[in-house]
């Protein structure tokens, strides 16, 4: 457990803040975080399934100015680890993710507040006209803070928490654990709702119905739906339908 705990802690540190900007855009999503956590704990597929289920509630989530309504590291890495270690269903994982993701906002706040001090230190440093050590302020020091606010809690959860969580979850009355499962089943509606808001344009609402019918009645898979969506987009242009709607309905 020690090695696994340290590795999950490292993963949490990497996902918590920006370790490598480009990579973070990709890995800091519960589906990837879940899969990687699963890999460390010895089961890629379970981790990926839990991560993907958690991902559903954050589907249309847009982070603006670095401020989000949940913490992606707590909701992704730590929640998956806790769910896996206590052998719970992905639906319970969703409930855990929502709780931890909200709690994790404290970590984000702490980090972005402490970072102010590093910016001021860098302000003094650049007065020397040198740039050689700028990376220390910009990259290295924030990583140490991340270790404390992300890595450490993740490590504690895995190293000390495994038995505690399992005992706790098993001690819950039947009704409560059923309720947790129901919450986990209902919350993905939030993610899909946010997704609708992100892509919504009034004039294209028919495509949502098409997509629904393709799956609910025709039982196609999502790739087929994507292709039909692409075909719809191509037709929209090649038939010149865009010219008919131009001007009238702006970004609605």
């Amino acid at each position, binding site marked *: 457990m020690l090695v696994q705990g340290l590795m999950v802690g490292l993963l949490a540190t990497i996902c918590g803040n920006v370790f490598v900007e480009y990579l973070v855009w990709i890995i800091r999503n519960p589906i990837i975080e879940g899969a990687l956590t699963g890999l460390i704990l010895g089961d890629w597929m379970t981790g990926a399934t839990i991560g993907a289920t958690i991902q559903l509630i954050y*589907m249309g989530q847009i982070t603006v100015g670095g401020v989000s309504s949940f913490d992606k590291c707590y909701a992704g890495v730590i929640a998956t680890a806790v769910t896996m270690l206590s052998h719970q269903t992905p639906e319970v994982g969703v409930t855990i993710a929502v709780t931890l993701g909200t709690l994790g906002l404290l970590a984000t706040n702490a980090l972005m507040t402490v970072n102010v001090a590093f910016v001021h230190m860098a302000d003094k440093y650049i007065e020397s006209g040198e740039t050689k050590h700028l990376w220390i302020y910009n990259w290295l020091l924030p990583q140490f803070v991340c270790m404390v606010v992300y890595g450490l809690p993740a490590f504690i959860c895995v190293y000390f928490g495994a038995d505690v969580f399992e005992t706790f979850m098993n001690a819950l009355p039947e009704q409560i654990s059923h309720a947790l499962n129901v919450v986990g089943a209902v919350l993905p509606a939030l993610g899909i709702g946010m997704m609708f808001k992100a892509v919504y344009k009034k004039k294209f609402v028919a495509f949502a119905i098409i997509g629904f019918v393709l799956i609910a009645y025709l039982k196609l898979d999502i790739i087929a739906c994507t292709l039909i969506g692409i075909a719809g987009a191509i037709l929209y242009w090649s038939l010149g339908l865009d010219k008919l709607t131009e001007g009238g309905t702006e970004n609605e």
Partner: protein
Amino acid sequence: MNETLNEATVKKQLTKKDLIRCFLIWETTSESCLSYERLMSMGFCHAMTPIINRLYADNKEERIKALRRHMMFFNTENNWGAFIPGLVASMEEDMANGGNIDEDMIKNIKVGLMGPLAGIGDTITQGLVKTVALAIGVDMTLKGSALGPIIFCLLYGIYLMAMGIFTFSKGYTLGRSILSKITDKRIMNKITDILSIIGLTIAGAMIANNVNITTPLQFTISDSTIVIQDLLNSILPGLLSVVAVVGVFMSLRKNTSVFKIMIVMFVIAVVCSLIGIL
């Protein structure tokens, strides 16, 4: 150092290596020190260091001035926003060679561009492209494919890299002339139209696929059992899921906060499960 001194007497020019280093630092640490006070300020300054060191190698005063002006408040979306360091690099180069660009112009262009590019970038990258890529990855994973997460990485990763390289290099080579095109409402509308069609198709599909709200309710009336879920399914498969998603969507359109909606759903789910409806 000698080399740069010689160059200074002729014409200060950024090498390809400087630009690549600038781009790589941008893609590595631009948000590492995100702070409440100035957000991406230090990330931007750090990315500009190869440019500053090349152009003002022999002039400490100018170097400090340049570092200071890039430590100002800055915040944008990283991938579309890569346009800005590219553009600023070309402006710094012009200024160092005594062109008609001054410090205020550089500051103003940063402030003027970061907002619009963040708006476009957030909408297209996070709202549309990422959502579509996630939808495919999540669905594959939940259907039991171990490749789901990897497919998402590939789709999203290729888009991000292509977008970053494209905007950064266009920012440097074409400068402000291309800007009117990027922010042209008509072109942006075309892009969002296409992504909206694809996105809505997938969003509709995902209601049926990934939201699974069912009721265990059943009544027994004189020997025959009526299972409510079957009844609902014969009206519309996944009726409860559709109702939930439409409800959430309506509240989001009314600008209700995500947090509030989450709490309400939480309470409804717990109460309904305790009285046996869900």
